[in-house]
């Protein structure tokens, strides 16, 4: 359904984008809403799970997942965690400032095929909610296509929770939609669950009649996947995303090559049984 082929002449030339809104999510995560500087549009179509190269000319370029849903036709959003030079400078930008964006890159989550008609369980840690938010809001906008939806989200502390407002005020009020939030250590004033994501997952004891999508730090993914397998899930029911260094985004520069795959075009979305076929260097 999504065959927005990258125009060949423009393969590496970005769009100029204007920041129209900046939301401060945590002390180190900000979410930027951008539109085309030329016509105020969304620059290109994308599907949940796809990424784009965001750049400040003269500083650098890096790949980010598009956190807004394709059903948002007003702007595109990127949630950016401050962890290097580019992200540091991005965090200093304000409404009205310009950046460049090119994409979309990579494979989408199979929202129109394998996910259809399924109960969905999203499990995310920290900034890992960013790519999943696109799928979640896509599923909410096409609610009849999916069954029960559960989101299990964890962060180090309550002040590290990304999109907390949206998930508790909007998602949680939807029909057949449960949001389970946890933080690593107890805090004054926090009434929700305390504990690591993999532990909370076991406590919640989901049945295996659902498709699971995991995104977060590699160590969390590892333990969550182990937990799901124990709970009777098959690897073919579990999806995740890989993150490797990228430069071109179009399978040419060799940067993101792992085994016979290029994460920029064959990923970042992988089904967990596909990951087993890759050499262990991600």
């Amino acid at each position, binding site marked *: 359904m999504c065959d927005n082929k990258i125009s060949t002449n423009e393969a*590496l030339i970005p769009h*100029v984008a204007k920041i129209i809104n900046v939301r401060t999510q945590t002390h180190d995560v900000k979410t930027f809403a951008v539109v085309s500087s030329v016509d105020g549009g969304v620059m290109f179509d994308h599907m949940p799970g796809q990424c784009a190269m965001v750049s400040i*000319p*003269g500083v650098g370029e890096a790949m980010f997942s598009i956190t807004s849903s394709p059903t948002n036709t007003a702007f595109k959003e990127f949630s950016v965690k401050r962890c290097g030079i580019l992200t540091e400078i991005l965090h200093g930008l304000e409404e009205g400032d*310009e950046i460049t964006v090119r994409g979309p890159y990579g494979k989408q989550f199979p929202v129109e095929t394998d996910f259809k008609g399924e109960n969905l369980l999203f499990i995310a840690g920290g900034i890992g909610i960013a790519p999943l938010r696109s799928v979640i809001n896509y599923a909410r906008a096409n609610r009849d296509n999916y069954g029960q939806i559960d989101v299990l989200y964890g962060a180090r502390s309550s002040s590290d929770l990304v999109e907390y407002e949206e998930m508790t005020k909007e998602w949680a009020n939807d029909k057949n939609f449960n949001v389970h939030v946890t933080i690593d250590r107890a805090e004054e004033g926090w009434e929700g669950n305390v504990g690591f994501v993999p532990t909370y997952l076991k406590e919640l004891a989901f049945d295996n009649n659902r498709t699971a999508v995991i995104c977060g730090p590699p160590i969390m993914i590892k333990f969550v996947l182990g937990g799901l397998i124990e709970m009777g899930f098959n690897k073919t029911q579990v999806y995740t995303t890989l993150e490797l260094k990228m430069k*071109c985004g179009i399978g*040419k*520069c*060799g940067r993101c090559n792992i085994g016979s795959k290029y994460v920029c075009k064959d990923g970042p979305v992988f089904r967990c049984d596909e990951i087993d076929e890759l050499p262990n260097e991600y």
Partner: protein
Amino acid sequence: MKKIALANMNALYEAIAKDMNLYVPIDNKASVNYAEWKQGDTPVFDKMTVRSAKDAFFPQCENMSTFSRDDDNRIIIDKIKLTEKDFVVMGIRACDVKAVAVLDKVFLSEPVDTFYKARRDHSILVSLSCSRPEETCFCSTFGIDPAEPKGDVAMYIVGDYAYFNACTDKGEKFLNGVSGLLENANDTDVDAAKAATREIMTKLPLHDVTTDGWGAGVLEEMFNRPEWEELSSSCIGCGTCTYVCPTCQCYDIRDYNGSNGVTRYRCWDSCMKSDFTMMAHGNNRTTQLQRFRQRFMHKLVYSPTNNDGEFSCVGCGRCVAKCPVSMNIVKVIKTMGGKK
């Protein structure tokens, strides 16, 4: 088949260079490399170029776009013009011709790399049948016949003549363009020379290297072999092998901050370098063993897995000749190959 007396070659170079850029191997005293032919230059066809013809299509460094800011701090992007002038690369050996086909697979597949495509569209490849293979050559390992190179036109230098055979329509047109300088010849005129080259190949030190054990679908087995440890231990990660390699295509994209704005360029990069996969928050290949393994697994396993069994080594021997610690793909192939 057409021919021209070697004594008249200068007239041919002149005729070609009139409308097109002509690149030929030139000995600049330091090394033999492709350079643009100028009046007075004498190409050197009997020595292997240190760098391959890759530079002609995928230069070591090329600008992709420029960025500037207007008075309101708005970003203005200017695209770099694509190659528009036809050019001829003359003297490419069979291995390097095959290497161009390997690069084509990468850069011409969707989404097409337009910088590369413009150069390929405007190029005419005049290949050269080898008469003096080097000790480091092992193209036959990959089924390449050095006596019968492909390209748009195949060139054979035998006795006092250079012979030409068109292999493509483009090559045919090219030869027609200079037909006034050429005389008719028989295909059989070069047969003895071809046979002699093939004979030499069977006597070269690396003639018995085979790809047994390598290829599509052996990822798990080869990736986990203990021999990588020993093989990679001497590699200093200098990247020489990747730069001289005609099929290595990894590149970096960088911005240069000049006084007139920002130039975004790409330049060759190397999977052998320690920061190749470094991200702001981590690196997935932290040891030289991992990086070394990546280069050879890519050429000998991942490429064939993705390209119907085609290896991305053409046996040109450049990395064999140039590695400062004498480590190379032949040692890797042999150490873990099926022969052992």
